[in-house]
């Protein structure tokens, strides 16, 4: 099968600059010292809600669980008026149809589907492409693929590059998020290299983690990826999205991330078009903080729907 768009030229990883680990850690710490209060906090929290990819990726997912998730994405907490919807729901490919039906055609909530042998990425390339096409055919607006970490770590960078480029083609109009699974890459240098490979191979978004291993998104790792995005933007003028996922479960931390985005790549990225949170429990914590701002009382989780 031949596509009309030319294959992007492969990326030479020696072009990726080395990462100053100590410098990144220092810089990352600074983001957590900003004081964000009152109206500023309120609008930040609303923005966070609107950037969430509400996620369920469990073996035990059922159609009804996905329906419930879709309802929650549209109706985060109806007793507080004026709340946004989440950016998307994120589900397994087999449940995309269910989600499409549950959301209907007019909902602003997008459907993201993981694909390509999520979460390990250990699968045959043709099956990965087939899975991607079917998910898009079923109605997915966005595909979250995983890179082949095994190939990356054994030095086969071209394989990783070609695979991302092939999946991008298979996506058609759907936007492609490339999950690097940074917890398995070992070093920040590798995170930078993988980010550059993904960006050059055609990723619309780069994403930190699957959420399936204990080491997930952190501020330093996200910073390294944002710097890769920034360098690419300076060189080409093309914007790439960023999605930290896993381990961001409280509102305060999410606000720190927004600070980092604004101060690293700029305010243009502060929309769900270019920045997302992959999370399942973050939404409720943000809702609790908004409710606290509304009525002044510290909230209890039992008054907020689980999904």
């Amino acid at each position: 099968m031949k596509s009309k768009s030319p294959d992007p030229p492969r990326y030479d990883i020696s072009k990726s600059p080395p990462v100053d680990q100590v410098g990144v850690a220092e810089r990352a710490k600074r983001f957590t010292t900003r004081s964000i209060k009152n109206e500023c906090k309120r609008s930040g929290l609303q923005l966070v809600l609107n950037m969430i990819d509400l996620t369920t990726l469990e073996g035990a997912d059922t159609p009804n669980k996905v329906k419930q998730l879709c309802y929650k994405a549209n109706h985060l907490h109806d007793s507080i008026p004026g709340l946004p919807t989440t950016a998307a729901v994120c589900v397994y490919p087999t449940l995309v149809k269910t989600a499409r039906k549950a959301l209907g055609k007019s909902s602003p909530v997008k459907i993201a589907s993981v694909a390509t042998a999520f979460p390990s990425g250990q699968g045959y390339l043709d099956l990965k492409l087939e899975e991607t096409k079917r998910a898009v055919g079923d109605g997915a607006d966005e595909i979250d693929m995983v890179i082949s970490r095994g190939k990356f770590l054994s030095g086969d960078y071209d394989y990783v590059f070609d695979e991302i480029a092939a999946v991008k083609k298979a996506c058609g109009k759907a936007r492609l998020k490339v999950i690097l699974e940074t917890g398995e890459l070992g070093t920040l240098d590798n995170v930078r290299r993988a980010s550059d490979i993904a960006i050059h191979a055609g990723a619309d978004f780069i994403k930190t983690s699957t959420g399936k291993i204990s080491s997930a998104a952190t501020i330093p790792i996200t910073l390294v990826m944002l710097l890769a995005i920034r360098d690419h933007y300076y060189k080409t003028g093309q914007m790439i999205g960023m999605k930290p996922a896993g381990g961001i479960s409280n509102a305060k931390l999410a606000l720190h991330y927004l600070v980092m985005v604004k101060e690293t790549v700029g305010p243009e990225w502060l929309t769900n078009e270019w920045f997302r949170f992959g999370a399942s429990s973050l939404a409720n914590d943000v809702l609790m903080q908004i409710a606290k701002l509304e009525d002044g009382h510290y909230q209890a989780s039992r008054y907020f729907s689980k999904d």
Partner: protein
Amino acid sequence: MKRLEVLKTYKLYIGGQFPRTESGRYYSPTGADGQSLGNICQSSRKDFRNAVVAAKGALGGWASRAAFNRSQILYRIGEMLEGRSAQFVDELIKQGSTEADARQEVEDSVDRCVYYAGWCDKYQQVFSAVNPVSSSHFNFSIYEPVGIVAAIAPEEKPLLGLLGTVLPIIVGGNSCVVLASGNSPLSAITLAEVLATSDLPGGVINILTGFREELLPFMVSHMEVNAFVASDLSAEHLKTAKEESIHNLKRIIHHKENIADCESPYPILSTQEVKTTWHPIESSISGGGKY
């Protein structure tokens, strides 16, 4: 050469850790001799909020422990307290007790631990009930913990009052956040060191120091807190407590007598909920005794 004395920094006890207050504030209560007792953390509402998060984390594990195991841990608190009684006597004297009163209070405190250790696996048997109903059901009522309890320890008898307040709360599987006596906070923080070495899981008892005027509204209005316990609130404070707690119909328990002098199982029940179960049974055809 005179040795330079190493003084203890009194900090808070939250989630099994000893953090300083996030607010960075402190106050310096004075002892009987007019000397400062030290710089004590003046907790803020955010410290209270953090303590509730810790209490929530500890609640499930503590409530589902075997009652006998809770009993063992309470007894262990008594053991550790006994071993450090000299230190407690010293601190109580510093805070204004006479030596005889201080000794008595520490002894009573150890005894109080043993007393409530005994009740852990007994209050259910004594106070649960099988109820007579006129249908073919086996109907019984048992006690369950309400959840997270906020408490203010009495100003007087700072050690025994604090223990008398929190022990009955945790006997029944609740976790708690307690504000220590404002003028005599030393023994509360030293007690935290006892708790930290007694196999009591971190977060079951959290101890704050500071001013009740400041923290009371947040203790009673926090939606995650299920009950509030105190015994020496002023009429005005009690009114505030009742008004601010209406949002989640929190239970406000104000013990009439000084809780330090109250050795009784009834304070256990005030932070318990009664669950009644209707269990269908086959009715006896032979006309055996219906309830």
